[in-house]
């Protein structure tokens, strides 16, 4: 093994120069991103040429620099910045890593390719010459550097041509064009269209819309039930599932649909603190992606259920009850303190959960009957405008 390793190390030649498309062929947003990277690099080279310590400024992503903007109703980063210098023992490695990533991102944009953040890790990982040290020792080292680059040059991850694993399906009365293919989301059978990781305008365009609203359900099985019952057809809507906590693609797509097509968005999650959390992240963003809330949050999303009050309202059988765990209770109590749940109607909702002492899954609506959710629960909620925001 040892002998083999040596051979391998010698192989780590610098990668070939990227096959860039000519700048003219690039979309404006792509040109912008490349220019931002170039500027960052140029400023480093110029500083060092003057004998100065090359440095880059970036907004701090620490909890202390995150706050809820009451006016915009999103969670966003504050103005505190930090400096990353090369000639500083505790920063040199990260400085180096930032430019390895920046270099590869420029290449991706230039070539018009996208990779996952894990693939980016492999793209930039190699062994430093003459040492056993790697440029990155694990993806947990490269992921934060990607986020650093995003805040440093103020770009979205998607604009750097990076994606996280996608998740989520959509059907409904909408026709889109994605990467040149025209796709009629009302003709997706039972499978639905997989929501891409990157839902920027450049690739994904809305061709024709007949839907009046969007229904996002947390759970795939619930989506399946609704899709099978052609709920989107009967109610004339777009039906999405986030399959759990919403991935960036789902969030961005929702934001665009809500903004560009002026469609109201309804969200159906389990009646538990986790469901409230999923709704909350959709609505005002999350603490650790605070720097991207502007591009991901959907502040006017409506919480249609399941509400703790539904138990009485819909006369649900006791078989739907799942006892709250100690953790659930703690979590709900924490949530009561969140500024975005300060409103009396939200306080009443969370108090009802705690008072019930149990949580409920959307699936449990089936204990009334197979069609109950499709034919009674949702239509009544929509008719009565029975939702929270």
């Amino acid at each position, binding site marked *: 093994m040892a002998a083999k390793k040596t051979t391998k190390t010698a192989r780590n030649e610098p990668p070939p120069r990227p096959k860039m498309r000519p700048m003219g062929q690039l979309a404006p947003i792509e040109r912008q991103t490349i220019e931002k990277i170039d500027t960052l690099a140029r400023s480093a080279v110029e500083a060092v040429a003057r004998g100065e310590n090359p440095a880059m400024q970036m907004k701090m992503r620490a909890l202390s620099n995150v706050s809820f903007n009451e006016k915009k109703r999103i969670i966003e980063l504050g103005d505190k910045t930090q400096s990353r210098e090369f000639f500083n023992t*505790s920063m040199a490695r990260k400085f180096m890593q930032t430019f390895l990533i920046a270099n590869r991102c420029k290449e991706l944009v230039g070539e018009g390719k996208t990779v996952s953040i894990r693939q980016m890790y492999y793209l930039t990982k190699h062994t430093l010459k003459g040492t056993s040290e790697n440029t990155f020792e694990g993806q947990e080292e490269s992921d934060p550097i990607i986020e650093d680059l995003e805040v440093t040059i103020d770009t979205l991850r998607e604009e750097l041509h990076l994606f996280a694993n996608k998740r989520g399906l959509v059907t409904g009365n909408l026709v889109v064009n994605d990467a040149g293919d025209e796709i009629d989301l009302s003709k997706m059978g039972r499978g639905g269209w997989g929501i891409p990781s990157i839902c920027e305008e450049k690739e994904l365009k809305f061709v024709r819309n007949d839907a009046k609203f969007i229904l996002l359900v947390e759970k795939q099985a619930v989506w399946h039930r609704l899709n099978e019952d052609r709920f989107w057809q009967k109610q004339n809507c777009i039906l999405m599932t986030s399959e759990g906590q919403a991935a960036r693609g789902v969030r961005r797509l929702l934001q665009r649909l809500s903004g560009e097509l002026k469609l109201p968005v309804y969200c159906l999650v389990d009646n538990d603190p986790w469901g409230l959390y999923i709704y909350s992240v959709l609505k005002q963003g999350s603490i650790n992606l605070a720097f991207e809330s502007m591009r991901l949050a959907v502040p006017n999303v409506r919480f249609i259920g399941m509400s703790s009050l539904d138990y009485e309202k819909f006369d649900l059988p006791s078989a739907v009850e799942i006892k709250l765990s100690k953790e659930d209770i703690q979590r709900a109590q924490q949530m009561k303190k969140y500024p975005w749940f300060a409103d009396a109607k939200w306080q009443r909702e969370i108090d009802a959960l705690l008072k019930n002492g149990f949580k409920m899954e959307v699936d449990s609506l089936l204990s009334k009957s197979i069609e109950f959710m499709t034919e009674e629960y949702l239509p009544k909620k929509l008719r009565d405008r029975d939702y929270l925001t």
Partner: protein
Amino acid sequence: MVSPDLLPQEPKEAPKRRATAEAMASRQREISVSEFFTKNRHLLGFDNPAKALLTTVKEAVDNALDACEEAGILPEIVVDIKEVGKDRFKVIIEDNGPGIVKAQMAKIFAKLLYGSKFHRLKQSRGQQGIGISAAVLYAQLTTGKPAIITSKIGKGRPAHKIGLRIDTKSNAPDVTSDEIVPWDKEHGTRIELELQAAYRGGRTGVDSYLEQTVVANPHLGLIFDPPKGEPTVYPRASEELPREAKEIKPHPHGVELGMLQMMLSDAPDETIKHVLTDRFSRVSAAVADEICVKAAVGPKMRAGDVHGDELDRLHKALGEVKVMAPSADCVVPIGEDLLKTGLRRRYPKAEFYASSTRPPSVYRGNPFVVEVGLAYGGDMPTDESADVMRFANRVPLQYQPKACAISESVYQTNWKAYEVSQPKGSLPVGPLAVVVHLASVWVPFTSEAKEAVAHYDDLMRELRLAVQECGRKLATYLRAQHKAQSEQKRLGIFQRYIPEVAEALSIILERDKDEIARQFQAALPNFVRLGQTTEGADVAAEEAPPAPSMLPPADSAAPPSMGEPPAGFDNDVSSSEIPAKKPGKSKN
């Protein structure tokens, strides 16, 4: 009190009476102390064969050390343990002490409760006058063999060699043989015992006891010949005898009521005032008067007449009156230099030694001194917990480390502040040995089995301060080491990363890679002091004394303020300071 009438009635048919009080009285008889300890030898440390061996060696060595010091002789001791049969060992301990006069030899070794140290208030190792004769008794009981004692009290004097047994019924020595033998030693004593025993290693074994004894007694020359393997020679590391401890009288604080009563009844015809000034230390006539006023007893009252409430009040007043602490010359610390000398003997390959002796302090009227020594580096394992040795009056404490205030002072100290790693709430981990010695006329043990020191505030404070003082010395040394290495390391980091940065920048900007790298190299000297070699960092690590006013508050377990980090280190706000609270189920 409840009346016994509540009990059920006597049964109709009373059981047959068996023995009467008279008959039972006729069976009562006295029991000799030897008979008692024969049956209850665990009370003296002979619980099991392994502990019996340790106790035997310990009693003999402690006695030899005490005798040498009292006589002003630098001790040379030979400990020889031979396995002579299954579970049978012969133990020989020979010293160069003052010897024992012929008339006393038999009683000292073969009469329980006989000795010179019991009635004195003085810092010494042995106390009871029972240990060595208990060993003789145990040997006799398990092997039937008499003890052989040889002793000579000076040049030109005869060496007497006697065989000794204990008549347990009368607790009296029984001399089985008696001869004069040639002995080329000027003076000294030698004891041979054959006993049932087990030889074990580890923290509570004989080896560990001797290794530790050597650390706390640098003036001791020791040869240890174990049952298996080569003998270990510990040459004397100091030619200096410890100062002789002064004998003191009881201090008014902390005297027990029963003790006071006995002192009074010992001099029934003297006045209270006279007893107080004469038999206590630090009680002047004025103090005695104050005590009597507080107790509301006449100072001229006969001591023999003090009973009941008066006694109670007098006892209370003694505990409350303000008196000076006793003179500290009753306490003999090892001293900073000798403690390091002792450590060097035990850990000859360590790279750094330090020690601190605190000034004398007082606990409930008892003066005491804490001292701490440490050895660092060399061949000690880097991934194990520090070796902690505990001593009370130079005697190693081998049992109950978890319950001991000494161990606690070591693991409660924040060693991370001294550049040594330390899992939360545990001993520090690293190539480190720590010695803590508590010297006092009266050491407050947690139980009277004398295995662990109790957690009293005054004591804990001194222990902590001593450990911290020593820890700071270590920190100063280690930081100097680190600093010397750091500039070199800084240089290495930058040089390793320059090619990578240059390559990335050159591709992004489509410029020449080597030119960019050259510019980085050119800027390098502005940020690293390349001229300064790492060798000059000559820090007299052991000398750096912190100003006493810098000491942290004694009650706080927080690390002492260490000031600013040394120059040359950068502080970085971690750029990956993401909040700990993650959203849970899914991660994008």
